[in-house]
C-alpha cells in the first residue's frame, strides 16, 4: 500500500523537514507535496452500501430486494441468503482543528498551529483525492469556523485553515459538545489539538462523538520544548491562554515536569486505546510525512486486527 518513498521512512531519510514545509505558503501545494503517492482506499466507509467489494452473507428477510439474493448459494444450500457490500468511498471527513492561544507556541521553525495546519491540509487533500466529502471545524472553547462537509469544499477548507489564527482559551469538552449537536451523520472525525486538559475529560468528550457512530482520530501536537522544558533562566512563566504568571526556576522542576508530561500523554494514549479511539502524538520537530506515514501505517495495521 505504501510507495517506495514511504518505505524509505523507516530509514529516517527522504522525508520533508518541517522547516522546508514552512517555506511553502500554498497549503494545497504543501498537501499535494506530502500526500502525493498515497493510494486510494486507505480507510473504509463505516456504511454498508452498493459497491463491488463483498462484505458478507446474511439470511433473507422479508422485504429485502430480491435482486440481492445469491442464487448460487441457494443452489448449493437450498436457503435464501442476501449478499452485502461495503461502501468504500463517499464518506465524510470532518477535521476539528484547535486554534486556542496555546497552539501558537513554537520553540523551533514552526509553531504547533502551523504544524497542525499542515496536518489538517494533508489529511484534507488526501481525503479529497478519494472523493470523500471534506468538512472543517476550528474551535477554541467554542466553534470559530465551520465548513460543512462537501466533495467540493477542498479549496474552502484550505483557505479557512490558512486564515486561522491562534487566540482565546481552549476547552475541548465544550467545543465537542457543540459539534456533537450538528454532526449527526456518521463520519470520520479527526481532532488536531495539544490536548491541554484533564485526560479523563478529553476522552469523555471524544467518546461522546464516537458513541454516535463516528470514527474518531485524535492527533495531539506538541512542541519539543513542552515535552522537555529546556529553559535555564529563572523566569516568570506566563500562561498563553489565561495570562496567569508564576515564577519558575526550570532547573529545579524540569524532571518533575517531564514526568508529569509523560504521564499525561501516556494516560491519554491508554484511555484512548481503551475507548477504541485512534490517537497519535506529533512532535513538531518531526517531519510531517514521516509522522503521517507512521500513523497511517499503524492505523492500517490495527484496522486489520480489528
Amino acid at each position, binding site marked *: 500500500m505504501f510507495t517506495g518513498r514511504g518505505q524509505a521512512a523507516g530509514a529516517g531519510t527522504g522525508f520533508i523537514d518541517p522547516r522546508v514545509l514552512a517555506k511553502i505558503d500554498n497549503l494545497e501545494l504543501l498537501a499535494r507535496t506530502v500526500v502525493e503517492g498515497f493510494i486510494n482506499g486507505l480507510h473504509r466507509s463505516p456504511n454498508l452500501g452498493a459497491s463491488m467489494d463483498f462484505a458478507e452473507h446474511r439470511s433473507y428477510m422479508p422485504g429485502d430486494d430480491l435482486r440481492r439474493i445469491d442464487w448460487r448459494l441457494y443452489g448449493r444450500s437450498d436457503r435464501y441468503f442476501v449478499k452485502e457490500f461495503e461502501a468504500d468511498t463517499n464518506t465524510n471527513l470532518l477535521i476539528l482543528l484547535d486554534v486556542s492561544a496555546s497552539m501558537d507556541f513554537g520553540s523551533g521553525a514552526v509553531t504547533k498551529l502551523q504544524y497542525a495546519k499542515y496536518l489538517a491540509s494533508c489529511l484534507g487533500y488526501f481525503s479529497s483525492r478519494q472523493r470523500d466529502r471534506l468538512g472543517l471545524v476550528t474551535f477554541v472553547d467554542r466553534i470559530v469556523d465551520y465548513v460543512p462537509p462537501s466533495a467540493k469544499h477542498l479549496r474552502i477548507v484550505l483557505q479557512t485553515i490558512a486564515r486561522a489564527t491562534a487566540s482565546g482559551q481552549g476547552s475541548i469538552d465544550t467545543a465537542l459538545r457543540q459539534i456533537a449537536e450538528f454532526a449527526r451523520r456518521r463520519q470520520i472525525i479527526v481532532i488536531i489539538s495539544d490536548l491541554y486538559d484533564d485526560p479523563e475529560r478529553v476522552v469523555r468528550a471524544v467518546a461522546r462523538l464516537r458513541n454516535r457512530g463516528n470514527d474518531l482520530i485524535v492527533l495531539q501536537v506538541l512542541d519539543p520544548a513542552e515535552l522537555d522544558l529546556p529553559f535555564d*533562566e529563572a523566569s516568570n512563566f506566563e500562561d498563553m*491562554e489565561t495570562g496567569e504568571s508564576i515564577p519558575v*526556576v526550570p532547573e529545579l522542576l524540569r524532571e518533575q515536569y517531564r514526568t*508529569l508530561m509523560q504521564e*499525561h500523554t501516556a494516560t491519554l494514549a491508554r484511555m484512548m486505546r481503551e475507548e477504541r479511539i485512534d490517537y497519535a502524538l506529533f512532535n513538531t520537530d518531526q517531519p510531517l510525512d514521516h509522522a503521517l506515514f507512521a500513523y497511517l501505517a499503524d492505523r492500517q495495521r490495527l484496522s486489520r486486527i480489528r
Partner: protein
Amino acid sequence: MSLTFLAPLFLLGLAAVAVPVIVHLVNRERRNAVAFPSLMFLRRVPFRSMSRQRIRHRALFALRILALALLALAFARPFVDRESRSLSASGAGPREVVVLLDRSYSMAYGDRWSRATAAAERAIAGVGTADRATLVLFDDEAVTAAGPTGDLAVVRAAIASSRPGAGSTRYAPALGVAQQLMDRAERPRREVVLISDFQRAGWDGQELPRLVAPATLSTIDVGDSATANSLVTGVDVTRDATDGVDRAIVAARVARKGDRAITGARATLEINGREVEAKPLTIPASGATSVIFAPVAVPDATTRGTVRVSGPASDDRLPVDDVFHFVIATAQVVNVLLVESPGASASRTMFLPRALGIGESPSFRVVQRRLDNVTAADVDAARVVFLHGPGMPSGAVGDRIRALVRGGGGLIVALGENSGTRAWSGTSELLPGSVGEIIDRSGERGGTMGSLDRNHPALESFRAARSGDFTSARYLRYRSLSPGSSDAVLARYDDGSVALAERRVGDGRVLVFTSTFDGYWNDLPVQPVFLPLIQSLVRHAAAWTAQPSSHTVGQVMALTEPGAGGELLAVSPSGERTRWSETDSIRSLALREQGFYEIRDANAVAASRTIAVNPDVVESELGSFPADELARAVSPAAGAATTAAGFTTLSVAEREKRQTLWWYVLVLALLLLAAESLLSNRLSRAARRDVAPASARMNHA
C-alpha cells in the same frame, strides 16, 4: 547624654531598605517573562521548589541595605545631646504639679465629688520633697486653694476641706491660672492635672489658654455616662390685686434630664420658710412641665419664696438644682406730683392722670395739684414732680423741688402758655436750656416729630423696630428751647426745634417737653404712643429699675439703690459678711452662693433688701464631651520652643557644632555605595558570561 536627631522625620527613609529586598526577591524573576502554552503541569509542582524567596548575592544585598539605612540616619542629623536630662520634660528631675479640681455644682452629682477628690489625692501622691504641688479649685472662676508647696499635708487638707459650690463650669479661668503657675515654676518637669466631669456647657469650643512646653496636661474624667436629674428651671410671679388684696401667683417650670420619666414626685412652695402648698408631679423623660400654685397673699415686707422638687433619690442624683429661690417684692409704687396751671380746665388736665393710672410695674400714685395750692409736703411725698403748664413754683415748694432733684428725684416740665421766660427766672441750673417764645405752626397744619434719640434711656422702650409711631401727632404750637452744651436733646420737631431735652442735676434728672400734654397745642394725647411715652418719661425721671425676682450665681450686683450712701452690710446665705464704708466709691457684690443675700444699713437690724440667688441652670445640662478634645486644644504645640526660666536654649551655631556626627555617617554610606557599585558590576559581568551559553542552549533547543 543620649543620641537624638535634629530631623527625625528623615528616619522614615529607613523604609527605603525595603527596595533592595524587593529588587532581590521579586524583580529578579520578572526580567524575562516566558510565554508558555499551559501552566497546567508547572502549577502542580510544589511551590517551595520555585525558590521565590531565595536571596541571591547576599553580600550585595547587605551592602545596599546598610548604605540606605546610613543615608537615612545621616539626613536625620544625629547628634549627642549632653543636656538632655535637663531639657527633657519627661525625664527625671523635680516636678511642678498643678491639680485643677472642678467644683462646679454638677460635681455634686452622685459620687462624682468623692471620685474627684480621690483622683486629686492620687495625682499628688507621687509628689516628693523636691517637688511642688498646687491645688486650684475652679468653677466659673479659679482660686488657688493650696500651694505651690512641697508639703503634701497642706494640699491634702485643702482637698479634704473643699466642697462643690453653686457655680457653673468654665475651663478658661482655670487653665489661665495653671499657665501662670507654670510660667513661675522652677522645676523642670511641669504637669497639669485637670479633674472634671467635662460638661459640654463648660466649653463651647472657643480658644482656651494654651500651655507652653514643657508643661504637659493630663485629664481625669469623673463624669457619668447616664444621668438622671430633675430641676426647677425658673419661677414666674404674677401679681393679682383685683379684689383689693395684693396676691402673688407662683408658676414654677420643672424639667427632667435623662431618658427616664419621673412619677410620684412633689413640688412644694415655701413662703418665708413655711410650706404653704405641695403638688404631685409627673415629668416626662427629657421633658418639662409647669406647676402653678394657688395665689398667696403678699405681706407688705419683702417675701422670700422657694419652690422645691422632691422625689425618689435614685431618680435625682443632683440635689442642688431641685430648689429655686425667689423674692416677691412689695408692690413698687412711684409717687408723682402733678402740678397744673391754676386756671386749667378739666378737659386739659385729664390725660396725664389717666395715662399714669394704668401702670402696674411699677404702678404710679398720682397726686394732682394746682400751682396755687401745692404744698411742700406734697413735694416731699413725691418721687417725681410733673409741672404741666405752670412755671417753677416759688418759695418753699420751689426749694423742695430743687432739693428733690438734687437728691435723686425727677422733674418733668411741659411748657405751655404760662411757662414763658419769666416763669423760669432763677431756675437756670435746673432747666436744660433757656425757654423762648412760642412757635406757632397752625398755619401749616402743624409740625411733626422729626428725630428721636431712641437709644436714650428715657426712650429705650421705643428702640425696637416699628415700636412707637411719633410721626402721626401734629404739633400746632410749642416753645423754643435753647439747650446748653451739657444738655441732652432727646427729640426734635421737623423744623429742628427741640421737642424734648434732659439735664442731670445732682443725682436727679430734669426733662423738658416744649409742648403740652393737654390736647390743645398738639394731638399727642390721643395717639397710641402717648401712654407708653408718659410712663417711660416718669420711670426715667424716677430712676426706676425693675427688680428681678431672682439672680444667678456668678452675677455681680452694683448696689446703687437710693439711700445706699451710708455704711452697707451684705450677709450671704452662709453668713459671710461684706462691708462697704461710706467712702467706698465702688459698691458691688459678687453673688457666689445659692440662697438669700441680705443687704442692709450696717447700723440697722432689718434688711433693706433681699436678693434671691440660684445656680445657673445651664450647669444642669450634664452632657459631656471627650476630655481628649480639651487636652488637644490646650496641650503645647508640637515642636514649641522651650523658653521657660531655668532652661538652657542652645543657639543655632552651638547646635551646628554638636551635629558633626552626621558627616561621618554620610561618608560611610557613600563608601558602602561605592563598594556596592564595584560588586554589582562584577556580578553583572559574571551573569552575562553565564547567560550567553544558556541562550545558545535555548536556541539550539
